[in-house]
């Protein structure tokens, strides 16, 4: 077997040196009734390397993908450009095949990249500190709710109905076995009405969670929410699903968010059918000892040289066990390196361009909509809801677009179960060209 270096004579030499007759004698402590007959598992025959490539190529060819279609799908995952350099850096074995940096002297590469990631993410989100990642945006949102309970010692969670339904579902799930209320504020108009959220808050509220831009793509002013949070002494949590927005629009930190969480998948990470993505977790410095997850900090070595270590580990499960701020151990470390590389390549100017192109594409698309299709009111970044006269019309368009190699959008009710089946959630990025929009509109005109 090509991944196993031993020859049979190596094995025999090792057994002989131990005075052991055969390998299976080393398994004598497992009761005989539990021994599986070797070779009896219901698995296929081993494949050669060429066989593996062939098998995966065949499977991959059965899929459509963003490379051979025009992808207008969003809902938390976005088809942004992945520069070759990003994939090269995360393919390097020294980054790819390292464990968590428990021995900092021989993990300074991972650690400095994490420190740079934390710095750039804090700057992009306008927040004071960032951790070294959560799994993805939904679990990051749930962890934010849990953190707010620790900080405020209160147990009521208020969340806007315009937060991505998947983030809400996971957050509710995480909270459902713990004491306290979980309040979802319904949002009926495909946008966020902060006044309704504010009405739902009270002095028992640990945090209020909104999404900005929200699940429907709406951009709105968060100033009134900050005031309401101060009045109720609760934490303001801002979630986001496409961090590229903050290359252009005001950051959660600028609005005074206490915690900002969301997806960093836009930062050079492939969609990969849903993962691995990057969960961003940021907060104010004063709450850092209640923050979940690993974090990298600056220090010096025995010679006084600057270096980096994982720090604040007394918050974590391996020290604090049941009193830890989270149970998270493995995180999305490599995705931090990818995001750091991506942001370095882009800089402020590149990030702003990405955001401009993403927003301009949606604006162009909306400006060309034929009668019979309406985009949601309000200010949008790169995502919006299109409303059709009927489900039949919408689905006819989806099918016509498919015939032209276009994934036109996500039927809203597949994510937001309560939505009427005539809406389409559509997203654009810098990967959408003007021709793609023309073809999109042409398919719409044919179908309607």
């Amino acid at each position, binding site marked *: 077997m090509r991944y196993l270096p031993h020859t049979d004579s190596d094995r025999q030499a090792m057994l002989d040196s131990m005075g052991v007759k055969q390998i299976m004698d080393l398994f004598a402590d497992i009761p005989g009734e539990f021994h599986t007959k070797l070779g009896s598992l219901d698995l296929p025959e081993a494949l050669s390397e060429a066989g593996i490539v062939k098998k995966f190529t065949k499977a991959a060819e059965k899929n459509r993908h963003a490379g051979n279609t025009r992808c207008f799908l969003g809902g938390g995952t976005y088809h942004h450009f992945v520069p070759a350099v990003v994939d090269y850096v995360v393919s390097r074995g020294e980054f790819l095949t390292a464990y968590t940096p428990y021995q900092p002297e021989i993990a300074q590469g991972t650690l400095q990249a994490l420190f740079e990631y934390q710095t750039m993410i804090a700057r992009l989100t306008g927040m004071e500190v960032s951790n070294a990642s959560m799994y993805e945006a939904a679990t990051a949102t749930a962890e934010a709710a849990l953190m707010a309970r620790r900080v405020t010692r209160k147990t009521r969670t208020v969340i806007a109905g315009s937060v991505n339904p998947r983030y809400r579902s996971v957050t509710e799930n995480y909270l459902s076995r713990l004491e306290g209320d979980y309040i979802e504020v319904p949002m009926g108009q495909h946008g966020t009405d902060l006044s309704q959220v504010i009405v739902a808050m009270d002095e028992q509220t640990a945090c209020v969670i909104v999404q900005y831009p929200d699940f429907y793509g709406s951009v709105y002013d968060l100033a009134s929410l900050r005031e309401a949070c101060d009045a109720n002494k609760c934490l303001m949590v801002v979630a986001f699903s496409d961090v590229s927005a903050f290359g252009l629009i005001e950051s959660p930190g600028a609005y005074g968010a206490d915690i900002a969480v969301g997806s960093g998948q836009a930062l050079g990470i492939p969609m990969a059918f849903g993962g691995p993505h990057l969960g961003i977790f940021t907060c104010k410095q004063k709450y850092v000892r209640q923050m979940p997850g690993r974090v990298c900090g600056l220090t010096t070595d025995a010679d006084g040289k600057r270096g980096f270590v994982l720090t604040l580990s007394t918050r974590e499960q391996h020290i604090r066990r049941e009193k830890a701020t989270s149970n998270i*151990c493995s995180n999305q470390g490599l995705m931090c390196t990818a995001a750091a590389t991506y942001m370095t390549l882009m800089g402020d100017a590149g*990030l702003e361009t990405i955001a401009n192109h993403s927003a301009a594409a949606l604006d162009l698309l909306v400006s060309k909509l034929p009668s019979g299709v309406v985009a949601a009111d309000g200010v949008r970044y790169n995502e919006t809801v299109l409303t059709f006269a009927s489900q039949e019309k919408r689905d006819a368009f989806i099918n016509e677009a498919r015939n032209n190699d276009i994934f036109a959008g996500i039927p809203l009710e597949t994510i937001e179960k309560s939505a009427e089946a005539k809406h389409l959630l559509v997203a654009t990025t810098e990967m959408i060209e003007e021709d793609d929009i023309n073809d999109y509109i042409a398919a719409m005109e044919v179908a309607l």
Partner: protein
Amino acid sequence: MSDTKYSATSGIQQEERLLFEHAHEAPESISLPGVQGKAPSSLDAFKRKTAANIPGLSEPETVRHFVRLSQWNHGIETGFYPLGSCTMKYNPRVNEQVARLPGLAHVHPDQPEDSVQGILGLLYELQGWLTEISGFTDITLQPAAGAHGELTGLMMIRKCLDARGEQARKKVLVPDSAHGTNPASAALCGMYTVEIKSGADGRIDLDELKKHLDDDVAALMMTNPNTAGTFESDIKEICQLVHDAGGLVYGDGANLNALVGVARPGDMGLDCLHINVHKTFSTPHGGGGPGAGPVAVNDTLKPFLPVPRIEKDGDVFKVITEDEQSIGSVLSTLGQTGVYMRANAYISAFGHNHIHKIAQDAVLNANYVLSRLKDVYHVPFEGLCKHECLLTDEWQNKHGVKTLDIAKRLIDLGFHPMTVYFPLIVHGAMLIEPTETESKETLDSFCDAMLEIAAQCEAGDTQALHDAPVKPIRRRLDETQAARKPVLVWQD
């Protein structure tokens, strides 16, 4: 000249500033595709008032910056990485290649089902294989890592007990040798943990276990082989006792590598098991992640599996998003599918005919290392080990040398240290997991280094141990300073 026996040398190591310290004007912006316009004027009122201050380097500078950083790392491709309970095995390169095929890497999770039959098929196939290898009846791929799997498993156990009208059961028994994630996960589930003291042999003590089995018991969380590297031979009786008391048994699969193809936890009476595919099934650990922590379940817990999940209807793969008794979702999507592509490729390479060789060689290697070191390092628990072996620094303490010194000295000799100070049930633990992808030559070289270190202790020649490491780009780092006044972001 003993140092030339080992691979570590002082080659050229480039210092590299933080990218924020590369002071020059921002380079010309990289050319980007798309609609070459500006955002609509409706967004003007929402524009950032101050730039984010992301520095931006040119492409050649970016590559050099990160390549230099990479060279300060030790990875499994660089050298031996015997971290106990972490299963640092070779990560096959072909797995990286196939996971990057555009038809797998650039697929959106909300594409219509008929456009993703290929990837659903690979995931479904893997579900079957993991279920078969672990000996259970079904599995969820949703958990993103081992600890996430623990949480998911406990959620299912909670729901199962609730369905039985046993809402009051909230006690989770955890051996004192358990991973810290176990009690942390239980707390997240609104349950409380009680630690069971290990017996003199490092295993679960049946009499001690019985003392805690009452009407409050929800579950026992156990790792088998345990974190001392030994197999819980009473596994059948342990599961029986917990079940008789009305509780369920959760299996932490961090140490599954010892059993792959040789024995199946599901056959032993466990109710569920999370699998660390980034350990046992060789997906790269990436300097901290991503991992994946699928949870395999028996018939008792199957009704409570999370959604969404994949089912097969004739020749068509479907994604089920609702199920009456399901615990719901623990992630936005089906799971870390990119990680699972690699796991599928890995198992494909072994097949039924080779899969047991993983556990065989892993256990052979650990016992070989143990046999070479047991006369010079204290072995707290006698007998066979499984895929990892546990030593302590007890005999080196009398020379003023601690586990940390031994670990740091190994760095100067070219090895990544073993897991240190875990498990907590022995003082000065050194947990060594060599894995099956290491050659006898590498194992011998590592054992020689360990013997040499022990000999230096005996000879009182310990300065190099206390000074270590001296060869990496940085020497011992001050963790106290980092934690006292944390600097987590760079201030220009």
